[in-house]
């Protein structure tokens, strides 16, 4: 079985092809962990690198993430107990007062495609809802998004509520959205900011490792 076909399918965002190749690989008894680490993750890294250098665009990222997620769903039940595909658990939402969610959904989709467990709380999310979701899902990271300068200020309240909460393990906080800047993120005490969905994945990986 030539698994570079799977690498290519993920890289080119071809879900159906990816699933077909993977099914054959499974039938031939290939170790799912090898399929994931040596081919799929590598393909996602390559599409990310192409995006960073301007050779691929957001739609390409999304098509790859979609293929990745589909194939992962096929492999997950086959993984031996104890091994996990999850790179970490992330709670994500658009903050209270705000309804703009396409940017947040792109970030969620890329994180999922790159192996994170993502709990998407939707739009108009209050600080209580963020804190409770972190508690319930033992999240490693909280991601917040906003469209306007008026609504981004609510992120301050959420970071404060997380710090003031009785959560023993405090999650890391990532923020983003059109009106945000690195400086604003630092000012409100967030652990990181990124201007795009690929950068969000790189940042999340870094925060989990740190």
């Amino acid at each position: 079985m030539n698994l570079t076909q799977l690498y290519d399918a993920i890289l080119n965002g071809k879900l159906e092809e990816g699933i077909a190749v993977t099914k054959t690989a499974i039938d031939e008894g290939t170790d799912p962990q090898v399929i994931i680490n040596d081919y799929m993750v590598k393909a996602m890294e390559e599409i990310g690198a192409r995006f960073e250098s301007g050779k691929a665009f957001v739609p390409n990222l999304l098509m790859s993430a979609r293929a990745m997620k589909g194939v992962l769903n096929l492999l997950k039940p086959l993984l031996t107990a104890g091994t996990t595909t999850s790179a970490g658990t992330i709670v994500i939402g658009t903050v209270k007062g705000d309804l703009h969610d396409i940017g947040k959904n792109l970030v969620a989709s890329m994180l999922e495609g790159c192996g994170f467990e993502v709990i998407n709380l939707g739009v108009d999310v209050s600080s209580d809802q963020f804190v409770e979701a972190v508690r319930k899902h033992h999240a490693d990271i909280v991601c917040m998004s906003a469209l306007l300068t008026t609504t981004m200020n609510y992120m301050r309240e959420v970071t404060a509520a997380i710090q003031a909460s009785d959560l023993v393990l405090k999650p890391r906080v990532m923020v983003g959205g059109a009106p945000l800047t690195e400086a604003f993120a630092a000012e409100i005490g967030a652990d990181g900011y990124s201007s795009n969905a690929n950068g969000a994945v790189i940042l999340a990986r870094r925060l989990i490792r740190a």
Partner: protein
Amino acid sequence: MKQAEIPFADLPFDRTEVCRGLGITQASAPGQFEILLDEAISEAARRCRPQYAYRLFPTERIDPDSISAGGARFATGHVITRYLRDAEYLAFFIATAGREFDAWLRELKTEDDILKEFLADAIGSEIAEATARIMARRMSGSLAEKGMQISNSYSPGYCGWPVSDQQQLFELFPPKICGVELNSSSLMSPVKSVSGVIAVGSRVQKMPYGCAICGRKDCYKNRLKQKI
């Protein structure tokens, strides 16, 4: 007050603007993607309900960084106000792709197809902008007969004009005008909506946007400048 609903076919809808919004900076996007985009545009054409409303008020006062009309003072900021200073009238407007379009966006979110969701979102942004453009064209046409010209349109949330000034702007219109509502954080719902002002007068000229003289770090146009 002038209010109108525009069939999609009459909109100056610009597909290349949609591609820009999708972050595609190259002439040709991935092949299968072009087909998906066209499919999404035809569906959007059926699901949108572009509408606009505008109202002209005689200019009450123009200061270096604010304008007054309709009994309200708008903190338009010095960058925008320069382009409004010859205004005899101020036309405040609201334009939208319609509640029906937002309903379609919400439907798509339940389908777990992030690519289509992304395409539809960018198409909706261009529908809202194209609606504002055709409104300006028609306004320009009807005012020309009276010897008046119009400026570009300027929106709260740009160039130092606080986004919260939309509260006063909306008070100049009946509630739920064109189906658009403003929440307490000054976000319009449906999301694919724009609001703003256009200067009207016999000496008003359409000038290029004043990005060159503005250094606001929180504006995306300046961030793009930094990247180059």
